């Protein structure tokens, strides 16, 4: 196991994260989480959709958030040493608050209830596929731009 974490929120295999000071870390996460949630709400207002429609707002939120976590984690674990509150604020807070798994699950439920089960199934699979590809693209792009690998 390298010192690169599996869990970007908190990985207890990394000694520095095991000893993280609770107060400042929780405050950074709270502020970041609020900003992320507001940004998500902004996208949802900008891209409204009916109950049977493909939930584009949540789709783009989750895919863009996954691209950005890939960029962020490569930057702070491979490219340069970041301030200790960078990961809590940007990763756990902003990106964690911005992206959502609960809305993803309930979006599927809602499309099925509206009689658009096929749309729900496509959304379920497409989000997963696009999100994972986005993480990989974010990581590879950042490594290339930083001159790594």
């Amino acid at each position, binding site marked *: 196991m390298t010192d690169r974490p599996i869990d970007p929120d908190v990985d207890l295999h990394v000694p520095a994260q095991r000893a993280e000071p609770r107060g400042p870390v929780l405050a950074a996460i709270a502020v970041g989480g609020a900003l992320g*949630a507001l940004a998500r709400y902004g996208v949802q207002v900008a891209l409204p959709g009916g109950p049977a429609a493909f939930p584009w707002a949540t789709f783009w939120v989750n895919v863009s958030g996954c691209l950005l*976590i890939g960029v962020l984690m490569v930057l702070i674990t491979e490219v340069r040493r970041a301030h200790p509150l960078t990961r809590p604020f940007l990763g756990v807070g902003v990106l964690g608050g911005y*992206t959502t798994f609960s809305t993803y699950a309930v979006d599927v*439920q809602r499309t099925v209830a509206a009689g658009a089960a096929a749309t729900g199934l496509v959304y379920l699979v497409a989000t997963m596929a696009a*999100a994972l590809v986005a993480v990989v693209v974010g990581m590879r792009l950042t490594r290339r731009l930083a001159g790594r690998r």
Partner: protein
Amino acid sequence: MTLVLIVIGAVVGAPLRYLVDRAVQARHETVFPWGTLSVNVAGSAVLGFVAALPVNDGVMALVGTGFCGALTTYSTFGYETVRLLEEGARFHAVANAVASVVAGLGAAYCGLALAQALT
């Protein structure tokens, strides 16, 4: 007012995700991301419950968009799945993806069923 309610929900939800993740991860030795799975399943259950209740927009902003949205995460889930693949833990990666979707959806339907039983 909607924005204030979203902020209040998120200020509670995001740190709670970190604390639950920490607490769960401290209780096992494997690389499987049980912590993130736990918050995502719990948040999906709560949102499934609230979304099926006849609640007003304020409650949805506070509990749905703010709290559940910030408690659950797709970026952490996505990054963990990719990192497990990078580390060669293909079974864990696939299990994480499948379990998250199955348990998350199942939890949302449990929330829905509970709400329907209560109303």
